[in-house]
């Protein structure tokens, strides 16, 4: 495995200074504004933030699926050495669903209601690999088995509405993994499901990713989800990454006051009966972002310095660990 070893040094995905903006009549919404991170093969990255923080748009930007009028206006996305932001449409299409695939949030709406499951699965194979209907069907069958769906032959001939929410999400995950991609972007795929099914699916996805060496970007608002799943975590706020590090670093010794606030508002971390601590105030309106640190109006540590844009402060010897704050919490090294 020397070839693989050599590749491990080169990250699979490098996002650098990504800006995705939405021009509207009232002004430009900077949904993603200077996001940088990288991902190695087989690695699982948790992208955490509140709704509107730009985490989903980041995911869609990688796939080149930002809805107009939104557009990637600056920055670069390098996948396996290929620049995606300038890649022609057809070349991008051949990557989508093949090398990079996606699972979206609502399992009830991801599958086309008027097409049979077999068709929705085989078309994903045939769009990239002209293997013929029979072989495609065979692969679809195997893919269903892999995500734990019993009697796949019968299931293949069914329509989506005959499945439960959890089953549909399994089918969607099976479709995302069907061409054995290098990277899967999962946009809150378990949020709409029951807690027990959430757990099962998380476990299965993790196992599948490890087995096949697939890298994962797991987008979520839920820190407890990334705790058991991700290798590394990026926390997003108002279109920027405000803190990054290994899961243990971020969850156990957060440096940014926003991450601290998020952790404090998770019920399980508080003592029973104690009041949940909430972050005061509201996330800033997308058009009215304050100058400097976007979090300063809600931040207990903010002062005059925070009017200036805080840079991402790395940690010596560990470029993947850092926080974008003038006054990081002292328990950081």
């Amino acid at each position, binding site marked *: 495995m020397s070839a693989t070893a050599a590749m491990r040094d080169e990250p699979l995905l490098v996002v650098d200074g990504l800006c995705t903006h*939405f021009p*509207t*009549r009232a002004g430009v*919404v900077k*949904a993603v504004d200077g996001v940088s991170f990288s991902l190695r093969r087989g690695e699982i990255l948790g992208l955490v933030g509140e709704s*509107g923080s730009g985490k989903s748009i980041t995911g869609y930007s990688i796939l080149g699926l930002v809805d107009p009028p*939104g557009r990637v206006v600056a920055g670069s996305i390098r996948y396996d050495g290929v620049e995606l932001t300038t890649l022609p449409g057809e070349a991008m299409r051949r990557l989508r669903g093949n090398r990079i695939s996606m699972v979206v949030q609502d399992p009830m709406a991801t599958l086309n209601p008027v097409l049979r499951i077999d068709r929705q699965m085989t078309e994903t194979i045939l769009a990239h690999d002209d293997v013929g209907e029979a072989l495609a069907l065979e692969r679809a069958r195997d893919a269903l088995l892999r995500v734990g769906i019993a009697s796949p032959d019968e299931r293949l001939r069914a329509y989506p509405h005959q499945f439960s929410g959890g089953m549909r999400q399994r089918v969607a995950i099976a479709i995302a993994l069907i061409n054995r991609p290098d990277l899967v972007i999962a946009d809150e795929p378990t949020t709409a499901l029951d807690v027990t099914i959430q757990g099962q699916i998380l476990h299965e996805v993790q196992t599948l990713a490890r087995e096949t060496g697939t890298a994962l970007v797991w987008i979520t608002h839920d820190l407890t989800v990334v705790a058991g799943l991700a290798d590394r975590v990026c926390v997003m706020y108002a279109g920027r990454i405000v803190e990054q590090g290994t899961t243990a670093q971020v969850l156990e010794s957060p440096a940014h006051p926003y991450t601290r606030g998020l952790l404090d508002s998770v019920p399980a971390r508080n003592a029973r009966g104690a009041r949940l601590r909430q972050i005061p105030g509201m996330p800033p309106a*997308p*058009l009215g972002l304050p100058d400097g640190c976007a979090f300063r109006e809600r931040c207990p540590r903010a002062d005059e310095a925070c009017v200036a844009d805080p840079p991402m402060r790395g940690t010596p010897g560990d470029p993947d660990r850092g926080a974008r704050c003038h006054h990081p919490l002292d328990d950081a090294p």
Partner: protein
Amino acid sequence: MPASAAPVRDPGVPTSPLRRVAADFFADPVATFGFALLALLVALALFAPLVSPQNPYDLAQIDVLDGRLPPGAAAATGGTYWLGTDDQGRDMLSAIFYGLRISLSVGVASTIVALAIGVVAGLAAAWAGGRIETLVMRVVDIQLSFPAILIALILIAVLGQGTGKVVAALVTVQWAYYARTVRSAALVERRKEYIEAARCLALSPLRIVAGHLLPNCLPPLIVVATVQVAAAIALEATLSFLGLGLPITEPSLGLLIANGYQYLLSGKYWISFFPGLALLASIVSINLVGDRLRDVLNPRLQR
């Protein structure tokens, strides 16, 4: 998400609802054009006797020898027939102004009567509920499942012809739209707290319905009424064209077009063409205004 990218309304100085609607309305150039065109047509209709070169129905002013002259021809009495003349020697421009007057008034009159009937029926259905509601809505459903032209034709066939009967047919065709609109709006409003509050104050049902429920049903009603005026004008023209509408003593645009039909085949297009253009302008301008009002008044689109 892009949804959160909706433009925020400037919370500056509070303005009256009418002003806000007007400002929103005229922000759209197409709607502004429609409004200007409609205003012009209404003015022409209102002041037809003043702006027309001749009174086309005063026999002393028309000359049969001037019949079927093409647009731009000189009149025997001096002056020019800008849009030509019809078979009787009438100046088409004047006939169109007078025809507009009749078409618009029949359209507006039938809309007002239908509006009154529809509002009462719809409010009664929403307020009373139960059997009355079922009955009214069943009739509405059945009626709306048949095309307006069919219902109007059958009524004319049964009732006979005449101005009053045409208006009656137009009213019958239209009232169901208002009844349905008012009922659905009233059902939504009824559940709101201010109606509950009014009830607790022991206000009489009539006062609650007329004073509180009705004003809140107005925005959708205005939109439907605008579109229906255009529909009524078009329907009256169609009936008149088929020879089943207004009598010859009330020469609406539809009658003018019908009158020119036989000359069309011999190439004398102007007798039908120009009244048709006036009809088209009326309907398009009303629809443009209605379309914009729908956007401006629709609370779901207000962000």
